[in-house]
C-alpha cells in the first residue's frame, strides 16, 4: 500500500501541470493535464460505445496516456523551435510546425525515450502486474497497436479541439488553426470526423444544411464539462487554499485510484471508472457542496475556528441537508444529460444513482475511493500549506471508511503524513 500511496501522490502532480499548448496563447489558468484527461475519458467513452470498442480498455488507456508527464513534463511540438523574438513567436505558434521527416523522427524518438523513462520511473515500485498493465496500455497508445490504441490517439486530438473551441468561444482571438492542422493529420475515424464537422462549422460561422442533432448535443455536453476544469473544490476554498484543484482534477485522480485499488477486489472496473467519471458532473449546475455550508459564518475568524472542528448536526438537520443536496444534484444531472441519447443519459443516471445510494458493490466501492482521494488531497495540502486542520479530517475518516482496502489505505496515510503524531 505504501507504494500505491506514493504512486497516487506523484500522479497528483498532473493536477497542477499546466498544458503548455494552451498557455502559449496567453490563456489565464490554462487547463492542466489532469483536467484534459478527465474530459478526454468522457469523450472517449461516448464514442467508443458508438463504435463498439472495448470501453474499459479505452478508459484505462486514456487515464494513463499522459502519466509520463509527471517527470517528463508536457512536451509540445513547438519545444526547442520557438523564436526568441516576441512577434515572430506570436506568429509561429499560430501555425502547426512543419518539419522534415528526419527532424520529425528525431524529435519523436527523443520525446518517446524521455516519456518512457518518466513513466517507468513513476511505476517502478508498483506490482509487476500493475506495471505491465500500465506500460502495455501506454505503448499501445503510443504505437496504435490495437484499434483502441489508434482510437485513443484520435480522441486525444478531439479533446484538444474541443478545448481549443471552448477557448475560442471565450476569446475569438484564440487560434484554433494549429489544432486543426494537427488533427487533420491524425483523425481518420468517420464518426469522430462527423463530430468535428460540427465544431468546424461553428468556428466558421456556417450553418449545416442538415442539422446534426446528435453531435450538436454532444458538443454542448462536452463544453459544459469545461466548467469543471475551472471550478475549484469548495472544501479547499473555505479553507483558504491557494490555487485549489478543480473538480475535474479530483475526478481524474479519483478514477485512477479507484481503478488501481479496485484491482484488489472482485469488481467490475469498467463500471467503477464510468461511475468515477460522472459522479460529480451534476456540479456543473449544482455547484460543489461541503458539510460546512449550512454553518459557515461570515466572520473570517469564526470561519477559521469552525474549520478546526468536524460539523456535528442533529439527525433532523443531517436528513434535511442530505435531501436538499440530493434533490439539487439530481435535478442538475437531469439538466446536463437531457439532450444526450436516451440510453447514454439513462446509463449516466443509473451510475450516479448507484453511487449515491450504494446499490451495487461498484457504487459502494467508488464512494469510498472518491473520499480517499479527497482525504489524500487534504493531507497533501496540509503538508504544503499547514491547512486544512487535520483533526476534523481524521475524525470524519474514522467514522466514514469501512471497506478493508480503504482502511488499509488510511493507515498508510497516517504513517506518511502523521509520522510525528504516531511517534508521540
Amino acid at each position: 500500500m505504501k507504494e500505491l500511496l506514493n504512486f497516487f501522490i506523484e500522479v497528483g502532480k498532473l493536477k497542477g501541470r499546466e498544458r503548455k499548448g494552451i498557455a502559449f496563447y496567453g490563456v489565464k489558468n490554462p487547463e492542466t493535464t489532469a483536467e484534459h484527461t478527465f474530459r478526454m475519458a468522457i469523450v472517449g467513452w461516448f464514442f467508443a460505445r458508438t463504435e463498439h470498442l472495448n470501453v474499459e480498455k479505452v478508459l484505462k488507456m486514456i487515464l494513463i496516456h499522459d502519466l509520463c508527464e509527471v517527470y517528463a513534463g508536457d512536451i509540445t511540438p513547438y519545444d526547442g523551435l520557438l523564436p526568441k523574438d516576441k512577434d515572430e513567436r506570436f506568429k509561429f505558434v499560430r501555425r502547426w510546425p512543419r518539419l522534415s521527416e528526419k527532424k520529425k523522427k528525431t524529435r519523436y524518438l527523443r520525446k518517446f525515450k524521455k516519456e518512457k523513462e518518466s513513466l517507468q520511473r513513476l511505476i517502478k515500485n508498483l506490482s509487476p502486474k500493475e506495471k505491465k498493465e500500465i506500460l502495455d496500455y501506454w505503448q499501445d497508445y503510443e504505437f496504435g497497436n490495437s484499434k483502441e490504441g489508434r482510437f485513443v490517439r484520435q480522441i486525444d486530438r478531439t479533446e484538444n479541439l474541443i478545448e481549443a473551441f471552448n477557448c475560442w468561444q471565450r476569446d475569438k482571438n484564440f487560434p484554433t488553426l494549429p489544432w486543426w492542422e494537427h488533427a487533420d493529420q491524425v483523425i481518420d475515424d468517420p464518426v469522430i470526423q462527423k463530430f468535428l464537422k460540427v465544431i468546424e462549422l461553428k468556428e466558421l460561422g456556417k450553418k449545416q444544411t442538415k442539422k446534426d442533432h446528435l453531435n450538436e448535443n454532444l458538443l454542448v455536453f462536452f463544453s459544459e464539462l469545461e466548467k469543471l476544469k475551472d471550478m475549484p473544490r469548495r472544501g479547499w476554498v473555505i479553507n483558504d487554499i491557494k490555487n485549489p484543484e478543480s473538480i475535474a482534477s479530483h475526478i481524474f485522480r479519483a478514477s485512477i485510484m479507484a481503478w488501481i485499488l479496485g484491482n484488489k477486489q472482485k469488481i467490475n472496473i469498467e463500471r467503477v471508472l464510468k461511475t468515477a467519471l460522472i459522479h460529480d458532473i451534476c456540479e456543473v449546475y449544482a455547484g460543489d457542496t461541503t458539510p460546512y455550508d449550512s454553518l459557515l459564518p461570515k466572520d473570517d475568524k469564526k470561519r477559521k475556528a469552525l474549520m478546526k472542528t468536524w460539523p456535528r448536526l442533529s439527525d433532523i438537520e443531517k436528513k434535511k441537508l442530505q435531501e436538499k443536496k440530493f434533490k439539487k444534484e439530481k435535478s442538475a444531472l437531469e439538466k446536463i444529460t437531457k439532450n444526450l441519447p436516451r440510453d447514454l443519459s439513462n446509463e449516466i443516471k443509473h451510475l450516479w444513482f448507484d453511487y449515491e445510494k450504494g446499490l451495487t458493490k461498484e457504487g459502494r466501492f467508488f464512494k469510498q475511493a472518491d473520499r480517499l482521494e479527497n482525504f489524500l488531497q487534504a493531507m497533501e495540502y496540509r503538508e504544503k500549506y499547514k491547512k486544512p486542520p487535520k483533526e476534523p479530517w481524521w475524525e470524519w475518516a474514522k467514522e466514514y471508511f469501512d471497506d478493508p482496502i480503504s482502511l488499509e489505505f488510511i493507515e498508510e496515510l497516517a504513517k506518511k503524513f502523521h509520522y510525528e503524531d504516531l511517534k508521540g
Partner: protein
Amino acid sequence: MDGKIFYITKAKLKEFEKEHEELLIFEHKKALEQEAPKILESEDLNPEFVSFQEDVGFLRSRIDELKNIIDHHELIRNPAKDKQGIIGLGAKVKVAVDDQKDEFIIVGTLEANPALGRISNESPVGKALLGHKIGDEVIISSPIKTVYKIKNIKYETN
C-alpha cells in the same frame, strides 16, 4: 460478496426482498417484450427502479446483488432487555465529541451513510463503540486522538 455476511435491519431486508421480487417480474416481462408495467410511469416510484427499464445488464447485476444479500444476511435484532445498555448493532447512540453532541446508529455496511449518522460497524468508530455503555469514553487515536463520551444508548423497535 465472497461469503461475506451482510448485517441488515428487518425493514431493509423487507425492502430488498420486495425490490428483488419486483425486478424479477420486470425482467421476465421485459424478456417477453411486454410493455413496462404501468407502475413504472408513476412519479412516486423509486427512481432507481424506473431507471432499470432500459438497462438489462444493470437490472441483472442488481438482481444478483439482491439475491446475494438475501442469501447471506443476518438480521440486526435488538438485544435482550438486560443487554440494551450496551452498544451493539442497531443501537442509536448519543455521544459528545469535545463539546459537540452527535447521534449515530450503528448499522451494517449496506445501510451505512455517515452523512445521515448511520455509521458502519466495520468503520473504526463503529467498531470501537461496540460493547460500550453509557458513561464510557471511547478513544480513537492513530494518528489524531478523538474522545467519544457515550451519553445515551437506545434501541428502536424493529
